[in-house]
């Protein structure tokens, strides 16, 4: 819808959450400014006040139906810190398996169900057909692969946690139940099929990239820093390690940062037009401290994946650009390489001789009044930070969510796409879809990042120099 010199896109479709985009035009009718507004309300940090700390993993898992496991992991790690325990090695590995399954199913959802219509049918496709049915019609094998790969990850979560969504299997001190031999073998049996799907989807994706040269050059293609957790050997990890930050040229800006001290180097800024906070790297200030997290960032900060096939693909990925890989369009590519890594790593962990051990939980009373847990969620680095009183009741909570880390970059990406594709005072579906599609590259989860309940919609507004709304598109 156009109102004055503003275009409004509301709701943004095929993302996790409710948002709108406003595009502000100058007197010449060209886009001057763009904003990605998250219109859901944040409330989980207050809701937890006064609850017993051991309830936190289960409570936190309720933030999101897409990646509850990541919240379980970060929350349980924060609680491990409160207990001041080192969890049993098998529990550590089982949590990693849980997390890898989660990343696989979440990445599959993003790529196959949300973004594959753009990639398969094109950015200018009829919006009524840009969905899983359009994909099923044009390439049924791709649609089937998406369903099977997501099922693969969900089934692992269900086998370990008892249910696919909001499982409460991860607990402070470890996990609640060991892995059975039958479940281990059943999961291993599904690995070859999942691996084959990941391999052929990656090949298909790479074959499509040539048709998206314009999008690659304009979808969040600008210099920023990138942040992610890496292992001691600077390899890819989703569970444990040190934070590493590289700049746009690929040079290390900061290394070996302890995630528990995140507030020393990460600032959070509130904007009046969005419920989603923007984070920035404190030494460079706001907004120069802009950085990106998630698949693209993880592959930019990691020297290696640590599994054979993913390492081959990572080497090819790094050849896309001599510096860090900058275009946010390549989030899709990075996501597929990570899926490959997750499946390979799952197989390694499931074949570990200790994986069936019954010793999976350390029990203790609280031994510290403050704890931080960090991990790599599918969309990027996730921090849970709790303070408790002597009775073990939560007194303060701070959650820093992946989508918040990417907020500055998403806003800048929308501006870049809008400047390139939106011209004049009217919107057309192709323009609209590209503005949405750049957001989809980041796979934002707004329920997570604002900790809200609600459904997902998108609105784009085109705003004139006097603040009048010139055009507006709303989808509900």
């Amino acid at each position, binding site marked *: 819808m156009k109102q004055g010199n503003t275009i409004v896109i509301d709701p943004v479709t095929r993302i996790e959450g409710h948002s709108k985009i406003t595009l502000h035009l100058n007197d010449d009718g060209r886009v001057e400014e763009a904003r990605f507004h998250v219109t859901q309300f944040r409330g989980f940090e207050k809701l937890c006040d006064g609850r017993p700390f051991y309830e936190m993993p289960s409570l936190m898992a309720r933030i999101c139906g897409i990646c509850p496991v990541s919240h379980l992991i970060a929350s349980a790690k924060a609680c491990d810190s409160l207990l001041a325990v080192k969890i049993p090695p098998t529990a550590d590995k089982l949590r990693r398996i849980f997390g890898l399954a989660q990343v696989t199913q979440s990445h599959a959802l993003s790529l196959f169900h949300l973004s594959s219509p753009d990639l398969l049918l094109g950015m200018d496709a009829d919006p009524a057909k840009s969905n899983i049915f359009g994909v099923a019609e044009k390439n049924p094998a791709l649609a089937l692969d998406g369903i*099977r790969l997501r099922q693969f990850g969900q089934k692992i979560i269900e086998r370990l946690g008892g249910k696919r969504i909001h499982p409460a299997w991860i607990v402070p001190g470890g996990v609640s139940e060991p892995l059975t031999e039958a479940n281990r073998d059943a999961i291993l049996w599904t690995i070859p099929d999942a691996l084959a799907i990941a391999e052929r989807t990656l090949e298909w994706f790479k074959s499509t990239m040539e048709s998206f040269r314009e999008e690659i050059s304009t979808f969040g293609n600008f210099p920023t820093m990138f942040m992610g957790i890496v292992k001691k050997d600077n390899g890819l990890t989703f569970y444990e390690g040190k934070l590493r930050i590289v700049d746009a040229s690929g040079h290390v800006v900061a290394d070996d940062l302890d995630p528990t001290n995140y507030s020393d180097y990460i600032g959070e800024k509130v904007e009046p037009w969005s419920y989603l906070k923007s984070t920035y790297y404190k030494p460079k200030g706001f907004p120069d401290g802009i950085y990106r997290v998630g698949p693209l960032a993880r592959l930019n900060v990691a020297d290696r994946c640590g599994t054979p096939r993913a390492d081959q693909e990572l080497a090819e990925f790094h050849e896309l650009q001599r510096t860090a890989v900058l275009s946010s369009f390549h989030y899709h590519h990075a996501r597929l390489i990570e899926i490959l890594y997750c499946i390979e790593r799952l197989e390694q962990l499931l074949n570990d001789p200790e994986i069936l051990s019954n010793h999976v939980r350390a029990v203790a009373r609280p031994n510290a009044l403050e704890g931080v847990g960090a991990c790599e969620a599918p969309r990027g680095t996730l921090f849970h930070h709790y303070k408790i009183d002597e009775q073990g009741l939560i007194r303060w909570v701070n959650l820093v969510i992946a989508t918040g880390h990417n907020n500055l970059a998403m806003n800048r990406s929308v501006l870049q796409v809008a400047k390139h594709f939106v011209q004049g005072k009217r919107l057309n579906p192709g323009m609209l879809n590209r503005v949405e599609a750049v957001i989809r590259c980041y796979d934002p989860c707004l329920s997570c990042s604002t900790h809200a309940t609600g459904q997902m919609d998108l609105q784009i507004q085109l705003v004139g120099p006097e603040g009048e709304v010139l055009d507006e598109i709303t989808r509900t």
Partner: protein
Amino acid sequence: MPRVLIVAYGNPLRSDDGLAWRAGELLHGKFSADEVEILCLQQLGPELGESASRCECMIFVDAASGAGNPGEVQVREFSLGSGEATEAPRFCHALPPSAILGLSERLYGARPRAYCVTITGESFEHGESLSSPVTAALPRLIARIEELVQSCERTGRGQP
């Protein structure tokens, strides 16, 4: 795969929207696990299309809003080969039953007979308890589902 798949879905933290979960609990143990599988879900995802393709009959249990009086039980059969299966939602991880059936047919070449059984809800606010009209209607809902299961077991899969 059992011949009949019952999918009870809704949000059990939203009062009457959770009625299907309560129905799922009440139905538990009433049927042979070899014949009837019961799933309780928050929402319907594309993955359900595969399960749909492997059963002969599918019964969706849901809360209805705004259709009829609170506590009213309604049964609707999804007609085979109708256009409703091509419904194309924008938000792909929460689909209506017709979309699940459409995916089953398009991707797996099979579609079960399917019904949607609902109770009209009174309250969808935050809460874990059901309203009085819905609580009173649950036995009728269960009875209708039992009839449908028996009917499904007699007739099997319909032809698209």
